[in-house]
């Protein structure tokens, strides 16, 4: 049997990053993700890496920008209010086409909000947050094991597409301890970084990393290039898990912690004669619209229920995906509260007219 190690979600992110070859971590403390920096501070010493406690989240993301420009695997992490501060950097990283990884262990907002789990940063993560036409790859793990695996995945995706990959967790995932197996992935073929600033060595023209294009036509051409890249990511990297979706009466759509609660509903509802399916988006961008549309199109499906730790954000994308084919219901909790199985079940029974 593979060795299983009991670990906090936050620690699993840090260990995964180090195993993915990340040697530069820049952060600023904020609950509930600070264990990432605690772990990095100890572990990076063992592997000869660098940890800087920056003066602000702004500085931290810009240190990532510098380290990524220099050709290294670098990351930062924070929680909602800190991620808001990093949005400037997100936009510049997109504009300069740099590979970078960021973890957001989401807490309840808006404002200083609370420190308990939330998914209220869905809009910010998937629809911009910073200025301009850009996208980030957004991964939504649902267990400590997945935090580990998707952090490694995030570095690979970031390098492959020269863009920011965001791990969108929540306070529950960051704080919980679960067993982790450190599966070593097969090495994959990733593009080299001839664009990085390393010093010309006197053997090549100077490299420049920039996001500024003053001429309209030049900037528009660059934006077209970015959009073509995003289209490729949308074609190739959509990930979702479907549970019990075939011939389902009711389709649930939930990610992260909510998907765990949703999974528990399936057998309980079945015992009461209702076949409930669950679609769990694993990539929030690109969003698995086709997967949802196909499942919702089944004649058996009466309605689609989106469950979130927010006041209704992903539900907008679900509605776009379903495109009027079936009614959409929403169940959300906020402030750090989680929906109970009981209230989800009640909602489902109401939807099927019982």
């Amino acid at each position, binding site marked *: *049997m593979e060795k*299983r190690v*009991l670990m906090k979600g936050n620690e699993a992110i840090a260990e995964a990053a180090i195993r993915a070859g990340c040697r530069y971590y820049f952060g600023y403390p904020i*609950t*509930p993700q600070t264990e990432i920096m605690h772990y990095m501070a100890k572990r990076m010493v063992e592997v000869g890496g660098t940890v800087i406690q920056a003066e602000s989240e702004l500085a931290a993301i810009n240190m990532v920008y510098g380290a990524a420009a220099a050709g290294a695997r670098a990351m930062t992490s924070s929680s909602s209010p800190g991620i808001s501060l990093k949005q400037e950097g997100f936009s510049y990283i997109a504009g300069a086409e740099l590979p970078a990884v960021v973890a957001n262990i989401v807490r309840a907002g808006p404002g200083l909000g609370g*420190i308990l789990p939330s998914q209220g940063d869905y809009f910010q993560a998937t629809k911009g947050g910073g200025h301009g036409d850009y996208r980030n790859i957004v991964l939504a793990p649902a267990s400590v094991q997945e935090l580990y695996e998707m952090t490694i995945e995030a570095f690979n995706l970031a390098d492959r597409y020269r863009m920011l990959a965001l791990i969108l967790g929540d*306070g*529950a995932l960051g*704080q*919980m*301890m*679960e*067993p982790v197996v450190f599966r070593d992935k097969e090495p994959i073929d990733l593009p080299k970084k001839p664009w990085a600033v390393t010093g010309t060595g006197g053997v090549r023209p100077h490299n420049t990393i920039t996001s500024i294009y003053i001429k309209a036509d030049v900037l528009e051409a660059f934006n077209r290039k970015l959009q073509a890249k995003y289209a490729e990511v949308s074609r190739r990297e959509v990930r979702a898990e479907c549970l019990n979706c075939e011939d389902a009466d009711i389709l649930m759509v939930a990610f992260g*912690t909510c998907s*765990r*609660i949703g*999974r*528990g509903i399936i057998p309980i509802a079945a015992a009461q004669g209702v076949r409930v399916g669950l679609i769990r988006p694993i990539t929030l961008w690109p969003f698995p619209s086709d997967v949802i549309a196909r499942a919702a199109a089944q004649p058996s499906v009466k309605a689609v229920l989106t469950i979130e730790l927010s006041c209704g954000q992903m539900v907008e994308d679900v509605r776009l995906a379903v495109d009027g084919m079936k009614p959409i219901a929403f169940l959300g909790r906020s402030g750090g509260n*989680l929906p*109970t*199985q*009981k209230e989800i079940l009640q909602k489902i029974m109401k939807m099927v007219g019982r």
Partner: protein
Amino acid sequence: MNCSILLAGFGGQGILSAGRFIASAALTEGKEVCWFPSYGPEMRGGTANCGVIVSDKTIGSPFITEADALVAMNSPSLEKFSEIVKPGGLIIIDSTLARPIHTRTDVQWISIPASELAAEQGNIAYAIIILLGCLIRQTGLVGRESFSRALFENLPLRHHHLIPAEMAAFDQGGNYAVGRD
């Protein structure tokens, strides 16, 4: 098998570590486990609680809304969490610090003067271990050997010499289990 345990008390009583010991012991037995702490702005002296779910299957929600057992080390925790214990479930209290409440007659109650017993042994930190001894004996959640191994795995080396005394406290708690052989 699917068992949800809530441990609750004051910060500093070793509640979070106790949850970790259970999770770690269950892990060595090949079970699925999920440990989830209360986390708050205060570092010391506030209330502390954690939930541990041990299961044969993949664990859904990390939050416990219906507990199989509650270990309460003060009255506020008991009042706060007694309502989420399932009918037929178990409540174990440190009777040095908390008194039983009579709103729940549909659960099994075990009162142990754990803090008093621990003080007699000269180490108040054993109180939670005494309570865990009772919990584990009563529920059969994990084996004694697995628990002992969990202590070795989770305590820093400098505290390993205390483990025999901790296991004695564990056994002492076990003796409070109902219907022990």
